[in-house]
């Protein structure tokens, strides 16, 4: 009896120490990320929030000014509204077009066609080369006098616009060049399309559904989680457009392409208004957060998760 209790005690102690040891090991294994998260994510986020209530020019110590930065932002900085407007037009122009095109190409590719692997690679290639090379290439393509954009238009008898030098055409030009990089989203859609079980289509066909009805009632619902994901990430991503604009237009002509992050960058690193830049950053963060939350809130109405059907097998 005594022996038994002792064994039990020992065993439960051992078990406890094992779980504890496992927990300690867990925190050791994730410690690089935890440290990085505190130093480069959470810490800076809080710091940016506090900084947004100060004037700080890097040389003299920060001065607490309460909501002065936000007041300047909303009332006396006309470029803030311009940057916000330009960025919204860009985001709501490019994201639907980008996703629509990627989905369309993925649907086309999801068929037994000759050379499909070759074409898949071709479509994906521009996504790898991103960054500065793409910006330089399109800068040359959009050259109003010698670029191929206007040469192609001249073939069909259109005199092309000045593209990057035209206040109206600059944003459409950026959106069109973004279409060049649909390969990443296309691959994700393609993988999801290939995961849709055949039997759903067979059942729909038995019910007499045509191609369009199958798309509407099988493909779209089954793809909706991936569409949802690509939509959220696409919006977050395109709100932060920077490199292309910085290299191709520097925000011009007449601030017609002054995107938000470029405005932020200039305030921080050209004018050294760190406090103001932090306020700009936090405001954009809130805008993105609200839009993301709205999409997430709307998702039960249009996103279909197969795992949540309630266990009935079809």
């Amino acid at each position, binding site marked *: 009896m005594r022996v038994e209790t002792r064994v039990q005690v020992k065993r439960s102690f051992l078990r406890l120490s094992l779980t504890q040891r496992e927990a300690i090991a867990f925190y050791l294994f994730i410690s690089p990320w935890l440290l990085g998260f505190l130093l480069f994510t959470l810490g800076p986020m809080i710091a940016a929030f506090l900084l947004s209530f100060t004037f700080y020019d890097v040389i003299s110590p920060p001065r607490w000014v309460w909501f002065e930065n936000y007041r300047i932002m909303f009332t006396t900085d006309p470029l803030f509204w311009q940057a916000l407007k330009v960025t919204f037009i860009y985001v709501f122009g490019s994201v639907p077009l980008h996703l629509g095109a990627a989905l369309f190409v993925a649907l086309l590719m999801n068929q037994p066609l000759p050379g499909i692997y070759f074409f898949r690679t071709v479509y994906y290639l521009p996504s790898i080369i991103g960054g500065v090379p793409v910006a330089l290439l399109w800068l040359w393509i959009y050259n109003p006098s010698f670029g191929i954009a206007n040469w192609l238009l001249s073939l069909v008898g259109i005199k092309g616009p000045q593209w990057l030098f035209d206040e109206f055409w600059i944003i459409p030009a950026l959106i069109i060049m973004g279409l060049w990089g649909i390969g990443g989203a296309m691959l994700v859609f393609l993988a999801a399309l290939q995961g849709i079980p055949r039997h759903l289509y067979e059942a729909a066909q038995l019910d007499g559904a045509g191609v369009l009805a199958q798309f509407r009632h099988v493909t779209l619902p089954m793809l909706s989680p991936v569409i949802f994901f690509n939509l959220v990430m696409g919006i977050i991503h395109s709100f932060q457009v920077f490199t292309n604009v910085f290299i191709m237009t520097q925000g011009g002509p007449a601030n017609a392409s002054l995107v938000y992050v470029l405005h932020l960058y200039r305030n*921080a690193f050209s004018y050294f208004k760190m406090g103001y830049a932090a306020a700009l950053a936090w405001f954009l963060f809130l805008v993105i957060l609200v839009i993301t939350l709205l999409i997430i809130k709307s998702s039960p109405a249009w996103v279909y998760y197969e795992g949540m059907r309630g266990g009935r097998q079809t």
Partner: protein
Amino acid sequence: MIGTLAHEFWRRKSVQNLFLRALSFTFIVAGSIFIAIPVAWMISTSLKTLGETFLFPPRWIPHEIRWDNYPRALTFIDYGHYLNNTLIITISAMIGQILSASLVAFGFARLRAPGRDFLFVVLLATLMLPYHVTLVPTYLLFRALGWLNTYLPLIVPSWLGGGAFFIFLLRQFFATLPLELDDAARIDGASLFDIYWRIMLPLSKPALATVAIFSFFAHWNDFLGPLIYLSRERMYTLSLGLAFYVTTHGQVEWNLLMAATLVTLLPPLILFFTFQRAFVQGIALTGLKG
């Protein structure tokens, strides 16, 4: 009569399918031309004389093919230095990212601890965090550390977790490996680190290759980081060097610039074609696109 025959013919499923496929194929080819034209134009420009780049309508096959644009492209900007700097940053960051992301992913995939699921949600949430929120304080932090004009701000964060995306990708992969492997190893007296280092890592080569390639691309193409932290010209990366050539020179030598850009694209392209399969699998595994 012919009308009804044609109608009958059209109503056959196989004919409709064939028509739909032919139509799809036409669209796909048209789209790939839209994608290929800029690349062809870049190659064509890179082989022209400067005079010929300023012809309209453009001549696709240059009058005289200037192969020597390529050696010249490596000297009209300080290409050697930029390449060297880019390689140092890219490779050091990539190694850090592979090691630290896999270490953290192992923790999330295999070990139980209070707070684990919460931390994993936090990790996933950082995937959606816009980078610009942390930009200014991070810059001030590195400035206070005296790390401006060093490569440390571009490398050290990669050694600390290496980005939520890679951790997530590797955790998903580790989760597909059978737990019996760990148990067997533990019975043989292996420590957790042994299990990570000698069992999980060797079995995860395809996933690690995906991380390596994504990480290589990310650092090779990075622009904002070098732009903010590197102001001494000899420390520029390729992205920064090419960008500043365009934004500071009034007269751009497009033929040389396109040649230099093409050379810059070679390493990522070679990597992509070598590891294409692992890469596409990695994308399908996570449903993310980097």
